[in-house]
């Protein structure tokens, strides 16, 4: 890693409860990563912009209720902006039966309430490596 992992931690949709995402942001910071942390209620186009300006490797979305239902919109928006090298993770409460669809849509990992800080940090680290490799490939193309 030439420079620390850059991770955007955010909440899209309408829910404001961000205790979980704050805790995760602290985990990632304590693991040496740079976390761009946003308040809840981010619009999808804002998230794309942030990802671009901050040149992030991974975007972590916290969803406790139903905001994960608009993840496909975020994925599409990132693709449209040529940012689909960015890896996506979702954390929070996602009903079991709605998870496969999310993964199919392009989410790399889903963390439920039982996920440990270790798991989260390791996964994000890995995904950052993947993201950078993917970006390089894309740039050459």
């Amino acid at each position, binding site marked *: 890693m030439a420079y620390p992992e850059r991770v955007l931690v955010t909440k899209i*949709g*309408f*829910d*404001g*409860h*961000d*205790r979980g995402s*704050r*805790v995760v*942001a*602290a985990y990632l*910071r304590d693991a040496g990563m740079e976390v761009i*942390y*946003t*308040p*809840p*209620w981010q619009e999808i186009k804002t998230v794309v912009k942030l990802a671009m300006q901050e040149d992030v490797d991974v975007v972590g979305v916290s969803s406790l*209720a*139903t*905001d994960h*239902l*608009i993840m496909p*919109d975020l994925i599409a928006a990132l693709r449209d902006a040529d940012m689909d090298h960015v890896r996506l993770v979702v954390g929070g*409460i996602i*009903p*079991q*039966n*709605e998870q496969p669809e999310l993964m199919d849509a392009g989410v790399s990992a889903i963390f*439920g*309430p*039982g996920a*440990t*800080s270790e798991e989260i940090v390791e996964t994000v680290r890995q995904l950052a490596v993947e993201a950078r490799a993917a970006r390089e490939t894309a740039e050459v193309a």
Partner: protein
Amino acid sequence: MSKKASNTNAATLKDKQAEWKVRYDKEIGQDRTVINRSGIEVRPLYTPLDWSDSRYGEDLGMPGELPYTRGIYNTMHRGRTWTQRQLIGLGTPQDYNERVRMMLQQGASAISLIPCNSSFRGIDCDESPLPLLGTCGTVINTVDHMDAALDDVPIGEISTAMNDPTPFTLFAFLLSVAKRRGVPFDKITGTANQSDYISHFVANHMFYRLSQPGARRVFVDHVKFCREHVPNWNPVSVVGQHMQQAGATPAETMGLTLSTAIQYADDCIESGMDPDNFLPRFTFFFDISISFFEEVAKFRAGRRIWAKIVRERYGAKDPRSWRFKFHGQTSGVDLTQQQPLNNIARVAAQAIAGIFGGLQSMHTDGFDEAMACPTEDAARIAVATQNILREEAHLCDVIDPLGGSYYVESLTNEMEEKIFQVMDTIENAGGMYNAVDAGIVQRMIGKSALEYQSRIETGAEKVVGVNCYQSEVEDREVDTYRPSRDAMEAQVTAFKAFKAARKQADVDRALDELARAANGSENVYQKVVGAADNGVTHGEIIACLRRELGFGHPLMVA
């Protein structure tokens, strides 16, 4: 406590306890240190050496009188059971109406309405992504929606709680409906739950509604309006729930909440109101966690402290001003996604703590609370839980049954100390607004949240089904509530039609008046109510006030 016991020779007791300790230590071997969520050590045994009833008069007194530790009323639950006020919010107004009528049949004695998250964001249903509408609350953007939601519900006889922050459009719609039905305003009872924008700011991030000075202005105008026109409505509910859910310990929560209440009371006084005018209508709203005794102690201490504050700081003379009235909601944060039916047991334990804590009204969560809006089954069981505790466990028969317990009284005193410490921190920072500006509150909450999470990770804090007693068996799939897409689409279509069919001139004029009031000294809330009468929508009212009073700014503290 018998006279004999209270005359126990302290020296003899000390010896006896020392003897017991020796036996205890021998048997238990390696004892564990138990620290509750607020950081107070919990010992294995409490005796009159920790608290004796020689302190009864000073610490406890009788129910219904200072210091109010045992309860704010003379009869408490024995005279009148706590209000069963279940939070309801889902789908379309019609969905809400169906559910609320079912709940009233099942035994709920009051209702609570929570609007869709899009509403908290400040926008109408035609501006939201369709999949997010009605998933966590009911879509109510107009007076017609409110009318449909409360169809056949006697609003002049039942207490309603509106879960709505500034500028309280839901309440405005409710008043419009009351006008339509010929229900006089003095018959409207209930509470403006979620009126506490400071707690939203630090823990729930609903600050995008209005700028802080704007919210402050509307809050005070709303209190003034209600005191004058809707005298039996509680315009203020200071919310401890958000902070505790965000990670504050129970003691921190109570301290921060009381500090917030002080800030609002100061604002009301600054605007010229008399403390005995508005304080009787100040209420509180708390989470009830599963840290059973800690919660009981938290509430008892809070009651005692508030009575002290209103008399000493504000010189309130009316006993009604001294009463710490609160609504409790069993904490969803303690509930798990894993093995969801276990949550029924959790909710029962939390509810008992709330009852023993002396709450005035309660909401019990559905077992699927961790996942989604409660299904009918879950909602029914939640109300049944309260009925069982009342009718079968007879929890209403004795006032403050834990009063006098050596443990509970010691803990109440210790919690009080911790609460005062938090309040001092806020006071030294110059009050709640300043403390929030400086990030003190957010850091306090964040620190506690991180600490708690670490304890869960290390297993120091056990959660059944999550870090212990995990089940190999697949969790049975819990139905998650999703509103009917068709119904939602129809709702949005009807809403657009409603807007097209309105008298635009009336709408424009109402909005002009609202804007003018915002820039002048007229009561802004009066104009919000006027706007609701004229068919102005929720989103339009908020857009207008955001323009005139300022958009909320996020305050981020890492």
